[in-house]
């Protein structure tokens, strides 16, 4: 008893004890943290690794139960088959071109609208901004049928039928429906982008524009030479998200362009195509009743999915740090 009291009054000892307790607590917390992070990362990465392993796996290895992840027989055949069924390189080029054009259109039109709402007040501007929020909230399937019919016989206020005598132009299965919706800031998730730009421009100091105005720049010149170069973080965010979401979008593409040469459309129909074309690719003849091993089909489908997401993953390796930074700097939160 006496010894304990003595130890308690010994300041050096108490200090050391507290320190030991603190460091051990810290270590325990670090351990828990790493376990959690590693566990969640594993769940996220596992499907990717599994596809990577199947992509190089020879069909011989499908039924070998001793194989986990790393195949015994490596092959590039899966990738070759998947590429030829997907018509990979031409389609990838086409998709990337389309997605890039869409991304640029979205960024420009949404930046204009966002700036207009952030800096100018005119009668009804608040109401109109409320309508922007409405476009975010209304699910797109409400607009699906009228949009489809609208683009099936596209017409701008009866002008086309006035001049040509026909009932508008059928724009389905062309790139125009998506281009038109993006250029007018009503495309895929445009409302969100307008909101991001609006928040960002609101956060910029007004003095910049006033200085530009005094130096004789008009509103448009101020916008293009001063505000836009300063809005790089917001532009970056919007372009990143617009690119990724456009690349992955199946709703608009299957609605307007179900026959087009785009990645998302082709990947969605990949399993059926593999079933159809794989026998002839394997040299089993063009008999339509011919079926290959369904597990082999699944192997090719998995490889195809990997090929489809590969461009995004590679892009992500380079730009991932902008993802976090951009959202912080654009002030979506504020």
């Amino acid at each position, binding site marked *: 008893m006496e010894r304990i009291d003595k130890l308690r009054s010994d300041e050096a000892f108490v200090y050391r004890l507290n320190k030991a307790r603190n460091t051990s607590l810290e270590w325990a917390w670090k351990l828990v943290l790493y376990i959690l992070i590693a566990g969640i990362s594993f769940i996220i990465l596992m499907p990717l690794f599994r596809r990577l392993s199947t992509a190089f796996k020879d069909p011989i290895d499908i039924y070998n139960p001793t194989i986990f992840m790393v195949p015994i027989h490596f092959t590039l055949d899966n990738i070759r088959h998947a590429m030829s069924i997907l018509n990979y390189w031409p389609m990838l080029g086409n998709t990337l071109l389309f997605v890039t054009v869409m991304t640029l259109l979205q960024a420009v039109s949404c930046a204009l609208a966002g700036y207009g709402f952030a800096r100018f007040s005119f009668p009804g501007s608040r109401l109109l901004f409320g309508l922007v929020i409405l476009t975010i909230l209304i699910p797109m399937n*409400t607009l699906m049928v009228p949009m489809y019919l609208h683009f099936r016989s596209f017409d701008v206020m009866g002008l086309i039928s006035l001049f040509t005598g026909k009932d508008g132009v059928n724009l389905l299965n062309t790139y125009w429906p998506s281009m038109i919706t993006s250029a007018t800031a009503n495309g895929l998730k445009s409302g969100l982008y307008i909101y991001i730009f609006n928040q960002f421009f609101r956060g910029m100091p007004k003095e910049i524009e006033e200085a530009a105005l005094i130096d004789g720049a008009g509103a448009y010149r101020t916008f293009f030479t001063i505000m836009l170069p300063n809005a790089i973080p917001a532009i970056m965010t919007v372009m990143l998200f617009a690119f990724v979401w456009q690349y*992955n979008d*199946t709703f608009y593409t299957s609605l307007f362009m179900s026959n087009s040469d785009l990645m998302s459309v082709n990947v969605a129909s990949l399993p059926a195509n593999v079933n159809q074309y794989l026998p002839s690719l394997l040299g089993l003849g063009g008999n339509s009743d011919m079926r290959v091993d369904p597990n082999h089909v*699944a192997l090719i489908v*998995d490889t195809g999915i990997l090929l489809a997401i590969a461009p*995004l993953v590679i892009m992500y390796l380079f730009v991932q740090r902008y993802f976090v930074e951009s959202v912080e700097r654009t002030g979506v939160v504020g």
Partner: protein
Amino acid sequence: MNLRRLTLVQKRALVGFSFILPWLVGFVFLFATPLIQSARFSFSKLNVAPGGYELEFTAWTNFKQALYIDPTFNRILTESVVNMLWSVPMILFFSLFSAVLLNQKFKGRGLARAVFFLPVILASGAIAAAETAGLISMTGSSQVAQELGEAQSGFDSISLIFMLDNAGFPDWFIDYIVSGVTGIYEIIRSSGVQILIFLAALQSVPPAMYEVAKMEGATPYESFWKITFPMVSPLILTNIIYTVIDSFADSPVTRKIYETAFQAQNFGLSAAMSWLYTGVVGIMLIVIGILVSRRVFYYN
């Protein structure tokens, strides 16, 4: 001539209007018009005629058909709304949890963040469709494929159920936790953007607050509930709305509406279904909004 007589304020208003003009044109022709048309379609029978369509007013027939006659719509709608109510708290909890984890200082944080945001770019409807279709062609039946898909995220939940049961939790709670654990991949896959938003919110909390709390002797647990949580609470509402909207895109109801329109060619019924869906979700959002915004703490 007239332009010269405008005041500066009016000129500014005009210029501002010209900035939003592209959006406004798009809004009127590609949003408002289709919206009104869609509402009209839902009360009509639509016949595709050469070079256009004809409408035949049928009052509430389409809505009645969707609710009382269509064999699956009711079930799909309730299922997907219940599913939404089920998964929103999970996603919110998980994303806030991950954001707090990623906001700690530790070695390899950059790498961990990169991995956690990977689902943002990989969450694709096309890939999900190809995955299930691949499984179907493997097994030859969608039922088996679904079960296989569930089995693939293999985790033996029996021991967890026993553990929770012995701990005396109510059945519905055990169900909820177990479904969350088995569906962890789904939850992670759909919470990328939410983590991003929460993380940004966490980083905008002034560090001085934590310092003060620490000096006054608050434990990390207390400072989470007294500082972190109130400061990010406005974003909880944002994230709820985002999660709900995000679930529209590949919900079974959307698929049903799409099929009704383009495979069954019943455009009127499809419009009615989509309005029902919009209405239900809208009411839900309003209720959640009112409930949550009462408890939200605004710093400024």
